[in-house]
């Protein structure tokens, strides 16, 4: 039986695939096609189209809506000269640093670390709460925060006995930063829980036997072991935070643009503002900034390894 098979295949002159699944390049290609087609059509195409749109005076309404003109880099000149863009960029960086890198990553790590020393019940409770905040649909989550921070009936004012404090107006950036920490910490917590679970217990034990403090254990054993996780987590969190539109549901960028992070700025320029071409130009700038961030992270990751 097997012999007969072998004989017929021996005559075929193709090279045998050299991977565990026997897929070969062509097989792998076939497996990739459906996903790449979807991604190409609904991700890459819009991205490329954005480049083109960014160089036109395309508008939502009026003459330029029917017949957009190619205007080269004019949009970019306009955006880069716009003080609002620079303020928005600055706010975005604060937002990303505060809620993403510091907030979610750090809090997520601390929670993941602490959960390991909590009794079962408390562990389950905290984990559930953190995860629930993440899983609840964003439109519900943002309404919950609107209710919590409401000027007149908000629970926070009632708890702190500060009636009439309009948190979203007086502290808009702090509000959306804390909101975003609340929403997103779960991902880092999950990721770091999984990472900490994979740190060899023998290494931790031997460092403890050498008398290392918690801090020293973290620095000498845990961090080196989970460097890859830290990097992936920070990269993903940074990109996600950079591009999140949800804070719009809380402050709508206000008051007076005091919490207008880039995605909100784009939305306001493109849809209510009607300048689709300019919106596309800002989108592209944002993509470039993201690219730079990603490259920096990769470089850090590679350097640490050697």
């Amino acid at each position, binding site marked *: 039986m097997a012999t007969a098979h072998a004989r017929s295949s021996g005559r075929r002159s193709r090279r045998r695939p*050299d991977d565990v699944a026997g897929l070969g390049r062509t097989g792998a290609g076939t497996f990739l096609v459906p996903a790449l087609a979807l991604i190409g059509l609904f991700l890459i195409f819009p991205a490329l189209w954005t480049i083109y749109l960014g160089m036109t005076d395309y508008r939502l309404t009026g003459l330029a809506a029917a017949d957009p003109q190619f205007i080269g880099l004019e949009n970019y000149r306009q955006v880069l000269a716009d003080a609002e863009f620079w303020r928005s960029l600055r706010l975005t960086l604060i937002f990303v640093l505060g809620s993403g890198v510091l907030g979610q990553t750090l809090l997520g790590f601390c929670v993941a670390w602490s959960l390991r020393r909590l009794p079962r019940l408390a562990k389950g409770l905290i984990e559930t709460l953190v995860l629930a905040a993440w899983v609840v649909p964003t439109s519900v989550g943002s309404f919950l925060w609107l209710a919590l921070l409401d000027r007149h009936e908000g629970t926070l004012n009632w708890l702190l006995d500060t009636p009439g404090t309009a948190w979203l107006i007086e502290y808009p950036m702090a509000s959306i930063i804390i909101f975003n920490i609340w929403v997103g910490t779960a991902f880092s917590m999950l990721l770091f829980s999984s990472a900490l679970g994979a740190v060899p217990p023998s290494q931790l034990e031997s460092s403890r036997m050498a008398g290392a403090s918690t801090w020293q254990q973290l620095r000498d054993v845990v961090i080196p072991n989970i460097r890859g996780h830290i990097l992936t987590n920070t990269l993903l969190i940074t990109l996600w935070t950079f591009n999140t539109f949800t804070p719009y549901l809380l402050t709508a960028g206000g008051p007076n643009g005091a919490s207008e992070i880039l995605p909100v700025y784009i939305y306001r320029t493109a849809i209510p503002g009607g300048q689709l071409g300019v919106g596309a130009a800002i989108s592209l700038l944002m993509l470039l900034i993201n690219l730079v961030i990603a490259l920096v992270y990769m470089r850090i990751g590679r350097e640490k390894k050697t």
Partner: protein
Amino acid sequence: MATIATTTLVKEYPGGVRGVDGVDVTIADGEFFALLGPSGCGKTTLLRSIAGLEAITEGTLHIGEVDVTQAEPGERGVAMVFQDYALFPHMDVADNIAYPLKIKKVKKSERRAKAVDVADGLALDGLSLRRPGQLSGGQQQRVALARAVATEPEVLLLDEPLSNLDARLRLEARTFLKELQRDLGVTTVFVTHDQAEALALADRLAVMKAGRLQQVGTPQEVFGRPANTFVASFIGSSPMNLVTTTIADGAVPVGQGTVPLPEGLTQADGREVIWGARPEYLRWSAEEVPVGVPAEVSVTENLGASALVTAVSGQEKLQLVVPEEDAPGPGDAGWVVASARRSLLFDPETTERID
């Protein structure tokens, strides 16, 4: 069943590492053949090339007269037991054993029956509903074997199947494996880095180093007449004594004494050679002997019924195995005596044995 024959088989990994570098070997039908060598010498690569899991870079591979160099693994009639057994964690024992039959489209009831049958034959009765995670190491190993033989393959490949078992279990499994192979009569290639295992199990064995075959032969040949100094020091539970020296007065000077030239060999005075003798073939004498090496014992290691004695003579260290009751203690002086029938000479340049 089937013979296996390779001609100048080369497997080059991307990056240029040659895992197997020009191997010519023919394995007879029904033979129990061991591939032996230190870690990283290319045993697994050769085995996987035979299985078809690695694409062969150069050379040819025949299994039973058929050129299978380019054939898919599933078309070669081979079965393999992996070092980590690779039992599917989501299937019970019977499904694991029956998996090859599932691929061959055997009906479910029929293949479960066959699986239970094979399992019973391998002392796995009553375990067919367990998952691999619920089995001991020895049981897992037998399930992996059962899965491999359930298809009645022409060739059975085993990659260090015993190395994950503890020492006692390993001896049991070794005997079990030998019996199984004899009953099935299937051509078997067995990879191991443990020379004792290879000597005990194999009809013939091949010693490998850096992707090349060093020697192919029966256990007696490889143990008694190693082809070069590498094989000489790799085979044996304690390595062969190897001393570089220069022939003088028709004898071989070693340390502060001499040993006789090996039987049947004549060498010109002044030729540089490596003299070799296994510790088991050296003798200890407390009284002076006409031809021997005066030495002082530095360490005595107990091996149970015998002792491994390390004796120093001048610059040379010699090891010899002595029956327990005759073992000298550290500091004792005496003579190491070699037999002409049981010693060898190697060429220091090529490291090959001189015949």
